[in-house]
């Protein structure tokens, strides 16, 4: 690992996991942790069809999340046999192939990107892959984590390795500090609005600067989670004392001498002074405001005080057509103030914003008040749910007239049947406002948990900072 050349966090992990590099530039990369879920059935089948077994079941961990029902823990409650089979496939595969999986009946079950860090399975300095694009989340602990497709999942199961070409690197530096009422969700939406939904394509992003190092691990998880929404496959934050304090004592974290040994490796990971990045971007932390998306891509994020842009002012014809399409789908008129947009439904959850700090932030807004519109709160894991209940947050949400559910991906992707009705407008703490993402013709606006909670009370978008003062 010693080198005269200054290396970035990304390069150090890349080198540590390079098995071989071919003359044509293809690198065979070892996989430290492989995460699987209830959408992995096709890869298990592909492996079986080849007559292969997983090479490293000891480095494979899974959970049921995409198809997990949030109103029950009973498999039988899933009416559709095809969807039920997806969860069954994970349980059966774990049993026969010998990897660890947290099923519906396990209190540790939850969204894979929530439970990886929560269990200490996610650790700094590892290549972590999963057949899910939001695998970028795990980069918050200083891992190189990225999503892969089903064929690649089968390949990793069979070989514990993956062919890759080396991505470019980008450093996004956020100076200063975030203002009160502004969260990691607002920050990542502001970043995506700045660099665009394809701004990070082909890159691994390292987030750096004082506004980043001041973030808690849970906030870093939110930040890294949406790196994919900027087109980047991975986002990461250098491990530091905050990271180590978070990991210490977690079930799959090392203990005793092994902890010290791990710590020695982890402390060497941060980018060296003088490390070179292909692209550098800087944002001023103080200038970030609570954000709301208005269109069909996360890049359409605007500050809460903003207005729906006017396509007539867009000189590029293709871009103008895309804006008109988005406004038509979203049922919005140019020039409308964001705070004048009435909301029909609220979703608080997803791998972006379903951890305990997210639930606390939402509960702080709704405590003692009443929601005007239907709202569901879906914790990211059984353990987050238990923690929230121990703190009385469930009673806060229920008292406000909101629903308190079991853990799963739920309305972020709607695969378990938790969806919005056609043309229903949803303030959502999830990560994608794509057409049909939350149900056919459903309209999604991405916001932070506090902003979603405030919208639930007001029935329209409202600046959570002003709301707090009232």
């Amino acid at each position: 690992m010693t080198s005269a050349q200054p290396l970035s966090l990304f390069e150090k992990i890349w080198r540590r996991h390079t098995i071989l590099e071919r003359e044509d530039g293809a690198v065979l990369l070892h996989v430290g942790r492989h995460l699987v879920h209830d959408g992995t059935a096709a890869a298990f089948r592909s492996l079986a069809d080849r007559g292969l077994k997983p090479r490293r079941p000891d480095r494979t961990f899974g959970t049921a999340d995409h198809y997990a029902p949030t109103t029950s823990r009973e498999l039988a409650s899933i009416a559709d046999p095809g969807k039920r089979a997806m969860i069954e496939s994970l349980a059966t595969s774990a049993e026969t192939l010998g990897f660890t999986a947290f099923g519906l009946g396990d209190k540790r079950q939850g969204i894979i990107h929530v439970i990886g860090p929560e269990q200490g399975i996610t650790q700094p300095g590892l290549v972590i892959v999963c057949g899910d694009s939001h695998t970028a989340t795990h980069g918050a602990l200083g891992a190189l984590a990225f999503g892969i497709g089903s064929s690649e999942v089968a390949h990793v199961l069979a070989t514990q390795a993956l062919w890759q070409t080396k991505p470019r690197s980008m450093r996004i530096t956020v100076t200063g500090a975030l203002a009160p009422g502004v969260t990691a969700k607002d920050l990542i939406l502001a970043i995506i609005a700045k660099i665009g939904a394809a701004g990070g394509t082909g890159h691994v992003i390292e987030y750096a600067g004082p506004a980043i190092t001041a973030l808690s691990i849970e906030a870093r998880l939110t930040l890294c989670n949406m790196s994919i929404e900027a087109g980047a496959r991975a986002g990461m934050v250098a491990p530091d004392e905050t990271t180590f304090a978070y990991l210490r004592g977690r079930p799959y974290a090392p203990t005793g001498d092994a902890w010290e040994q791990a710590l020695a490796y982890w402390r060497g990971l941060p980018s060296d002074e003088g490390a070179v990045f292909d692209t550098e971007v800087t944002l001023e932390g103080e200038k970030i405001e609570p954000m709301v998306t208005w269109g069909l891509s996360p890049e359409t994020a605007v500050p809460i005080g903003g207005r729906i842009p006017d396509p007539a002012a867009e000189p590029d014809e293709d871009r103008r057509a895309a804006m008109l399409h988005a406004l038509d789908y979203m049922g919005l008129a140019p020039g409308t103030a964001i705070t004048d947009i009435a909301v029909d439904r609220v979703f608080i959850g997803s791998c972006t914003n379903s951890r305990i700090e997210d639930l606390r932030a939402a509960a702080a807004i709704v405590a003692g008040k009443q929601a005007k519109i239907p709202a569901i709160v879906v914790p990211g894991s059984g353990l987050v749910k238990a923690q929230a209940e121990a703190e009385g947050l469930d009673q806060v949400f229920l008292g406000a007239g909101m629903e308190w559910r079991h853990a799963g991906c739920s309305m972020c992707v709607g695969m378990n049947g938790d969806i919005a009705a056609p043309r229903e407008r949803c303030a959502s703490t999830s990560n994608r406002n794509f057409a049909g993402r939350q149900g056919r013709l459903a309209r999604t606006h991405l916001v932070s948990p506090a902003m979603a909670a405030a919208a639930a009370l007001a029935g329209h978008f409202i600046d959570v900072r002003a709301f707090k003062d009232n």
Partner: protein
Amino acid sequence: MEPFKRLEAIALPLDLPNMDTDQIIPARFLWRPRAAGYGDLLFNDLRYAPDGAASPDFVLNQPSYAGAKILVAEKNFGCGSSREQAVWALHDYGFRAVIAPSFGDIFYNNCCKQGVVPVVLPEAAVAALRAAAPGALITVDLERQTVTGPDGFHATFEIAAYQRRQLLDGLDDVALTLAFIETMAAFETEYDRALPWLTARPASA
């Protein structure tokens, strides 16, 4: 998978940027087994009205593009979810190549695993191809890494050598990788020794 050398076919233009994989194949269909085929689900919500009737305005339903095998898309095509079903749907419908100014990274890699050639060309070149007359033929030549089309259109494209090789040969890369099994095993022995804490398990387990 089927090898791809060169294909001359009708090109179908799709004008929307940031065409995410949720629109290519909505999440509610993803549990369907691969063997059942995904071609009928491609662009489902754009292609069919909620009552199941074909939407006449959507380009896929227009007769002049019947039999199209090359998709000419906008920037950031296939962004979003890692679902490989997006490529299965394109493949099963009959598409064997997609041309766009940029792709979602995971989608791009998934294409290479399914014998669908992802071609990146400059924005202006892709716009010219999208503007071609309905039913126009385009040729994607993977061996030469060229795209040719109407009105003397000619462009070259880049693709990683190993992905080009995989597409040309139609190779299953699991078999290819397992040829390096000894190198991999030696690497793993060293890795497990250097990072022994990865075997840590909960005290109760």
